[in-house]
């Protein structure tokens, strides 16, 4: 299984995603530079976290014009699994591969801490190995993770079962207190209509080794590895 980790200028979780997929999960992984002409024959594309272009102007706003994004779009259109983590999620939204936008956190501060998220749907390649309702303990680290979309869009996302992760308490209950950034409907991550493109604010790649305090993030990577092995997609 080969993961492509896309590097934009200013990406800073690129090595973390690489480490998690290659060294922890033992898969093939390769960096793809944002000016590269192809995705190196990857089976899965990861848009990692960080501050592409310094997050200047708006998070993800400039990165989405990088040449590699045209390749990512083709890959996604062909059904290839794509995951955007944190800044990667922001890039996917700006690029229109996912719907919605991310505003500044409700209390205007950058937040780095472990939170709980509930897996809402298991019919995406990144959650197929999980159980619906399963609660993960994973870190967040962002200043602009407050998911926003118009009420119609939110309703459509819900109706089409595109809300994949919600912030919750340890027991899976939703509450204002367990929503760290003010996201509408506690949305922590969504997928596209085709269900192969997933974006989320929390960092599963930071939760793959017990030494780092949680291994709950592995299920996302393990899911996509077995999904691909099972379907032989791409």
């Amino acid at each position: 299984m080969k993961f492509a980790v896309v590097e934009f200028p200013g990406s800073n979780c690129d090595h973390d995603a690489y480490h998690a997929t290659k060294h922890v999960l033992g898969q093939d992984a390769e960096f793809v530079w944002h000016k590269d002409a192809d995705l190196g024959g990857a089976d899965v594309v990861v848009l990692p976290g960080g501050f592409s272009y310094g997050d200047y102007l708006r998070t993800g706003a400039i990165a989405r014009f990088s040449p590699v994004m045209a390749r990512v779009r083709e890959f996604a259109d062909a059904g290839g699994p794509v995951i955007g983590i944190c800044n990667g999620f922001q890039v996917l939204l700006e690029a229109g591969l996912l719907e919605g936008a991310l505003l500044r956190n409700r209390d205007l501060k950058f937040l780095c801490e472990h939170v709980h998220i509930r897996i809402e749907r298991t019919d995406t390649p990144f959650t197929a190995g999980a159980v619906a309702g399963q609660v993960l303990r994973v870190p967040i680290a962002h200043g602009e993770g407050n998911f926003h979309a118009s009420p119609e869009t939110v309703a459509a996302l819900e109706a089409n079962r595109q809300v994949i992760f919600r912030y919750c308490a340890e027991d899976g209950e939703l509450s204002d207190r367990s929503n760290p950034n003010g996201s509408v409907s506690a949305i922590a991550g969504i997928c596209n209509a085709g269900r192969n493109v997933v974006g989320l604010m929390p960092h599963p790649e930071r939760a793959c080794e017990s030494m780092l305090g949680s291994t709950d993030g592995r299920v996302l990577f393990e899911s996509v590895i077995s999904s691909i092995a099972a379907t032989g997609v791409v």
Partner: protein
Amino acid sequence: MSIDQTTIDAHGFSPEEFQRLLEILGREPTMTELGIFSVMWSEHCSYKSSRLHLRRFPTEGPRVVQGPGENAGAVDIGDGITAVFKIESHNHPSFIEPYQGAATGVGGIIRDIFTMGARPIALLNSLRFGELDDPATKRLIDGVVAGIAGYGNSIGIPTVGGEIAFEPGYAGNPLVNVFCLGVAKADGLAMGLASGAGNPVYYVGAKTGRDGIHGATMASAEFDEHSADKRPAVQVGDPFMEKLLLEACLEVMRTDALVGIQDMGAAGLTCSTSEMGARGDVGIEIDVALVPQRETGMTPYEIMLSESQERMLLVAQRGREAEVERVFAKWDLHAVRIGQVTDDGLLRIRDHGEVVAEIPNRPLADRAPLYDRPTERPAYLDDVAQLDLATLAPPTDLGQVWLDLLGTPVIASKRWVYRQYDHMVRTNTVVLPGLGAGVVRVKGTTRALVFSLDGNGRHCYLDPAEGGRLAMAEAARNVACAGAVPIGATNCLNFGNPERPDIMWQFSQAVDGIAEACRALDVPITGGNVSLYNETDGQAIYPTPVLGVVGVLDDVSHVLTRVFPEPDLDIVLLGDPAGGLGGSEYLKQHHGLVRGTPCAVDLDRERALQGLLVDAAQGRWIRSAHDGSDGGLAVTLAECCVESGTVGAQIDLPSWDGADDRFGVVQALFGEAPSRVIVSVAAGQRDQLLSSARERSVPATVIGSTGGDRLRLAVAGQSVADIGVDEAEHAWGQGLTRHFER
């Protein structure tokens, strides 16, 4: 054109200094030359008041790869890896513009580390402000923390720990010290040195503007009501540019097309060109017209003195230019050739070809002024040493005092601060902030690096030499509490005006204390920073040395934190039960007094204790370890219980001579003393721990056990305080945060 006296004075030259300048040049200086000498000989760049004293630090040891003198120090951590680290202050800029001042401080220390060829992997910060009841102080803190976060988070280096304290003396002069650590292959260190006549000199990074001209001189002058006039000296940080520079420079260093590299920090092009030349004993010639400029009409003087951020100077091998340029181009950076290395030993500055400055490099550096400033023991010391407990009323509700102490901002949880910092990026952070020293693993090895920043201005104010010893001992102890062996130290010496003999005395005493502790603990100083003139309207801050100690833990799986992990463990106090109230947090909070003398540290005992901790961690005899500092044993114990769920503790502290005195119990609970650590131990390992402690003459007393959901404290069998873990958690959790909630 000859330069008039007013101009000379404005550049801060003393008559003798100017005379020396004339001797070196053998003629009158040009304006550009005057500017260059002025910044190079400023306190900030030349350390003219402190250099003499800093020589007393021990700087050598088997692990030292690079001692003081380069951009950062370096120690060997094994496995062919070198840890490179240093601390830097950005006190004055942060007071003028908290966000940008703190942010550019972080940017500066990061450049110092990657300039050495090391990949930065961790940041720490040490902060001092006035008391939190002042809204202006809160705004300052808000800005400083956001600035550190803004820069560190963006560039992707985790801020894994630090310290923050509040004392009235810092209200007009906050301290913002930042520490960065990186790792490099042992043979991969780069040096800030030029060599090889004809080799090209490159400029890369942000364009030069009129930023911070005379910033270096600003950091060397006291604040007064006219400081506002110096405001244009503020710069805006660009972490994105620095991220590109960091990656590109590390990539260039891997090519061996590089001869030397140096960041442009204080005094920008001036400092980098002359220092690189002086270190290599060569000349450097540049043309300022080739320097990329952001503003029009800049004079050579301005270009040479600009402190625009995010710029690097490098010397490449002649003939390998294309390789260097290609790497920078990949990162959308433009490396511009602005000159070359020469063999005449001169710093020659041209402007469109015309020579505007020509200064012999070595004398500019080597003959910088060096002062043995007069010292005099301050008169206040005799007064503040007097602490007469007989005039004070002991508290009646010890549980309440306990909770109050837990809720004071300096002791309370720092979560409000560190959750604004990305402390997990790079996936190496093995111990999250708030649980003890910073711990990051080194991927590809079994090792972890452990570091702590510690300082206590109040102790140094009451006794600067003891304060220096205590700060060094505490920083090393915090590292040992995680199970790591301290192997190197850096320090940031924040003091007032060195031209005042009492301040200079404090400085000299503190250096002596630190040096003594370093020798006793066998931890060399590999570098540091001095920040003087920390005064507002003649009112100096507490003398505040901040020590940064780096340790290595051979097997990361042995790491310890402060938290009692489960019930039914024995709690053992390593060290003396007795603590003193002189200079304690209790005395300040409960009686409003900063008096007495802090308990002295017995350095032999300290060394034995740290050795015991390291062995106990390695042998897995203990389950947690926490250094007792502010607030005494009661506070230390409560800190072992909070954030761990509901593991409480029952404690019975022994009585000791004088325990029947009115303040005996207070001293048992809240008295402070160095060389004390609370550890938890499973029944099976207890005897091993106790006998090993006995062998090393470290006092060890079983004082209780973990469990339950309350913290019960007795002294000599007599119950004295009993609080719920949840109460403690609440007081401690909200103590700092509540000041910032809307």
